[in-house]
């Protein structure tokens, strides 16, 4: 099984505060993994570190993507190599239209902006200032449209279900499925994903291959995402702390 992303003993701090403490994980080509965790557990920090934002300082460890150490590369180099991220709260950029960004994302592929936007009923947003006055669902659609045009091999999604009403959740689920090639069944997928979820709703739409629980910057367990989610629903994250599987996980990763 070919590995797309491998994270080895990753320690990260932000403004001098340690936020990730020895993360190990690997995502094979074509697989989608999900991360569960409370607010402030380090989930978003992990995604931001994978994307390479300078505020997230790697103190120790490595990020290997497509066999190459990318730990010191700036975000745009990582984007060019095939990593894409969906922001939870993207900024508004004055005077810059969604179309302007999509055109720049489309630089190296031929996906038609208009056609794709139309297929998700989002064409009227193309000429609006990006993210300005967008509702929760509209922000997600805008982010996913940018990712679909960017066409990355590894998709990082930060709580794709947050702030989205039920009606829009279906469409957003469809967009994520397309992004992760979940609509392909009879040939191997080439796209992988790492999805943060707080509520677990996204699991109704996306079949994930593996789940992780992050608590206080550490991975506490990994396993079947549905089972982990059911466990969290029943016992909360406190249950994860007491869970014996954690010891199996630690011994497995040498922690």
């Amino acid at each position, binding site marked *: 099984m070919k590995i797309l992303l491998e994270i080895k003993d990753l320690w990260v701090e932000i403004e001098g505060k340690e936020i990730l403490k020895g993360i190990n994980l690997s995502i094979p080509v074509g697989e989608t993994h999900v991360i569960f965790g409370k607010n402030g557990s380090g989930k978003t920090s992990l995604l931001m570190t994978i*994307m390479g934002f300078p505020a997230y300082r790697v103190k120790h460890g490595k990020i290997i993507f497509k066999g190459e150490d990318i730990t010191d590369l700036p975000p745009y180099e990582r984007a060019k190599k095939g990593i894409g991220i969906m922001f939870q709260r993207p900024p508004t950029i004055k005077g810059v239209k969604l179309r*302007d960004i999509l055109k720049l994302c489309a630089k190296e592929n031929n996906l038609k902006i208009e056609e794709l936007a139309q297929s998700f009923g989002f064409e009227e947003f193309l000429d609006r200032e990006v993210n300005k006055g967008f509702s929760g669902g509209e922000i997600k659609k805008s982010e996913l449209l940018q990712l679909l045009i960017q066409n990355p091999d590894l998709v990082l999604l930060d709580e794709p279900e947050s702030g989205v009403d039920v009606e829009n959740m279906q469409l957003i689920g469809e967009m994520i499925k397309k992004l992760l090639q979940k609509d392909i069944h009879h040939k191997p997928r080439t796209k992988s994903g790492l999805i943060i979820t707080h509520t677990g709703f996204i699991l109704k739409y996306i079949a994930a291959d593996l789940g992780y629980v992050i608590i206080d910057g550490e991975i506490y367990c990994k396993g079947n995402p549905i089972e982990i989610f059911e466990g969290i629903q029943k016992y909360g994250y406190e249950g994860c702390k007491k869970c014996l599987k954690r010891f199996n996980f630690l011994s497995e990763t040498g922690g």
Partner: protein
Amino acid sequence: MSKIDPKKFKSAKKSDIPKDLSELSEEERERLKVLGLDESLKREGEFVQVDAKPLLCKKEVEGLEILPITEALEKYKWLKDYYWKALSPEKDEFTKAAAEDLDNGYFVRVLPNYKLIYPVQACLYIRTENISQKVHNIVIVEEGAELNLITSCAVHPHITSALHIGVSEYYIKKGGKLTFSMIHMWGEETIVRPRTGIIVEEGGTYISTYVNLFPVKSIQTSPVCRLLGKGARASFATIVVNHPDSYIDIGGEVYLEAPNTRTEIISRTVVYGGENIAKGKIVAKSPKVKGHLECQGLMLSHKGIMKAIPELDSYFSDVELTHEAAVGKIAKEEVEYLMARGLSEDEATSLIVKGFLTIKIEGIPPALQKQIDKTLELASLGF
């Protein structure tokens, strides 16, 4: 800013001027084309002055008059009722210099109820090193008429030092509308002193857009607009890039002198260096008026200075005057957002700056917006 003596510059009247525009070099024509003097663009009329001499003055439609101001003053005795009436020749040394020794300028008039569809293009071009070009322009939009006037000002691509004094008086009669746009492309040693007075009567509209994206030594201007009749309105939009060593002081004063008049003054400035002063003043001299001032500056260098000075004066309680000013640097999260989409830091910054300077102005003709976008593209190459 040290004092400027208009007399230190050579007279524009003595320069050697080509007989017609075809004698301009390709490089010069290219520069003027960027600023709107483009045969492929539909125009209702055109006026081109090189140094002191009008080289082109033509009109394509009925209801429009275009003349060099010196000819117009001879032809129409009544024009003296408009000459130096929205502005005083005694205002400063620059108005005095223009009053004493005028080089020329344009007279544009739209007859009552004629609504011109395409723009009228005027171009004031300095071709000779170290001259002072002193122009006086008068625009009259008669009752119910509409005019869209674009004035481009530039210096020859290879000259830098010059002084441009532009006295302009605009009169918008009852229900008339003037959309006035000015695009500047000066040299690094050019000094520019526009002096503008605007009078708008009942129900009239004045929409002004000013664009200056290239290096210049010094610009100082503060158009004074009086809204004299009920329901008159004026809007000013200024888009400026302040380069290192440029001193740009642009203001705008609007006097709301009748009920239901309203105004909006918006400016966007990007500072790469030098000194920028963005002033705006709205004076309520009547009840039931409305005014808004918005001034935003983006500082891209530690070496530049930006001063935003908004002023609101009211003599009545029943008015609505507001202002909003913000000066700061580019938000890091915006740059990082675009970097995550594969843009380098420079590409991201350039897109953000372009977006910042893109203000959608109500009533601006699409052709002009295109021209501004084109100028922005060109300017961003040098960023």
